[in-house]
């Protein structure tokens, strides 16, 4: 347990020491999105009845920030350690592959939650954002950041260079989050796009998260929960397997 806690502590300290870049910067950019969309779209987009567009947008943006930062945390920590070589200090130690997995993922979850919470608290100053079923939101934000953290870990282990990681981020994570219903409800989409959206696991995270705020969602939160949980388990099994076999880490 001490080994796991130490690695977790190290991972938390790592982003905490550069908190300006890892916590504050993503909060500011998320709030800029909000500011811009609020001015441009507030009166022109219809989402849910009785929910103003900006209020609808807030949980989506919070979740997007959570997903992106959870991914960024595990992926950049892993690739930096690989490229600078200091990953050997973890690999030389008796830390089990499960301990390594859980430490990286928990650190990702916590960074995601900190950024998300920061954004949410700032929006509360300006807007009246309801949070009707906070436990649902909490559940989805934890599962969502965990999935993102696991994806980041896998990407960080797989990538040999920073640009490969950027490819993963820009061509997989970014499109999946942007097209997951952060900015709109999928009901507003043509049927084909609606169908495609349902293949995107990030859609269920955001839909379920938003359900906790408004008590309304595009699909049943139970189905979303099931799908998100299955996704998390599947990629976690994959990630633990990768760590166990030493893929790209132990040659």
């Amino acid at each position, binding site marked *: 347990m001490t*080994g796991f*806690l130490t690695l977790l502590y190290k991972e938390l300290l790592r982003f905490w020491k550069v908190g300006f870049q890892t916590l504050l910067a993503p909060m500011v950019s998320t709030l800029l999105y909000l500011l811009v969309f609020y001015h441009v779209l507030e009166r022109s987009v219809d989402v849910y009845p009785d929910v103003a567009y900006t209020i609808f947008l807030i949980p989506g943006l919070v979740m997007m920030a959570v997903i992106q930062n959870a991914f960024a945390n595990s992926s950049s920590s892993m690739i930096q350690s690989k490229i600078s070589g200091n990953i050997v200090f973890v690999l*030389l130690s008796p830390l089990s592959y499960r301990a390594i997995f859980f430490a990286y993922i928990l650190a990702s979850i916590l960074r995601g939650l900190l950024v998300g919470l920061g954004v949410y608290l700032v929006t509360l100053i300006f807007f009246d954002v309801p949070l009707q079923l906070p436990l649902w939101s909490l559940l989805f934000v934890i599962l969502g950041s965990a999935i993102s953290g696991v994806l980041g870990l896998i990407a960080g282990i797989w990538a040999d260079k920073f640009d490969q990681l950027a490819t993963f981020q820009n061509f997989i994570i970014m499109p999946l989050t942007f097209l997951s219903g952060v900015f709109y409800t999928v009901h507003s989409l043509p049927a084909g796009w609606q169908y495609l959206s349902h293949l995107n696991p990030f859609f269920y995270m955001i839909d379920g998260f938003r359900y906790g705020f408004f008590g309304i969602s595009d699909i049943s939160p139970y189905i979303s929960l099931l799908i998100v949980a299955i996704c998390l388990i599947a990629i976690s099994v994959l990630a633990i397997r990768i760590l166990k076999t030493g893929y790209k880490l132990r040659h």
Partner: protein
Amino acid sequence: MPPAIEVRQVCKRFGSLHALTNIDLEIHTGEFFALLGPNGAGKTTLISIIAGLSLATGGSVSVMGHDIITQYQQARRNLGIVPQELVFDAFFTVREILLIQSGYYGIKNNIRWVDEIIERLDLADKADANMRTLSGGMKRRVLVAQALVHKPPVIILDEPTAGVDVELRQTLWDFIKQLNQDGHTIVLTTHYLEEAEALCHRVAMLKEGSIVALDSTQNLIAKMTAAGKSISLRLLPDTLPSSLHALLMNHNNGLVELRIENYAQVESILSSLRSENIQVLEMHLQQPDLEDVFVSIMRNSGNQSK
């Protein structure tokens, strides 16, 4: 008591390249052991396999009786590795790094031992400095300190003195000697053969992924000595009396090299020269050291089949 390190039939292939071929090696507890070989011979690969950083294609390795795959946690607890590359984590200070490293080994509250290593490795001034700000030599010391946080019985140092100035090299060796006297098994690789000769009880020489010599340092040198003591002379005039022709090994650039069995022969050689009125301008006695052993073995073991 199990051997400190036991390597059995270890092979490592990278694609079609055979980096290691059927390595068998047993290093006893308390030994001071050197792994020698030219660049690319497979020293670092072998160390990486023992450390679990690299996976062997075949064979098995155990550390203090613990298999490095099936009992990896016990094996790694018994092992401290000082990597060849100067790797460090730029986010932390020296003391933070050492406490974090202790935690990885499950050790809480290691501050007393960490401060002692910091003291003994002369890092006290830099204990709270960020790793980035340290010089190469200082980073090297931190690497040594990191390998010691869990007081491992077996310590492997991969070229610990590469790129290190003379003074630090001396400090490091004194420290490592002390560790060996305290009962730690020490394995090292080095390019400075005189270091291996001065410190190590036993030597394995690697060439192209195979062990080409494995013996005590003394035996290796003794074998060479039996074969090859010699005396080099610069003579005026540059001619050799016929009585000495039987001993001639080499004669070029005015330097005559004669094979001798023992130093008593020197006297008779000199008297032969005196009786022919040949002056001795220069004289060297050559006794092989580990470097000669090394060069001769590397030359004679030839290009073995792959």
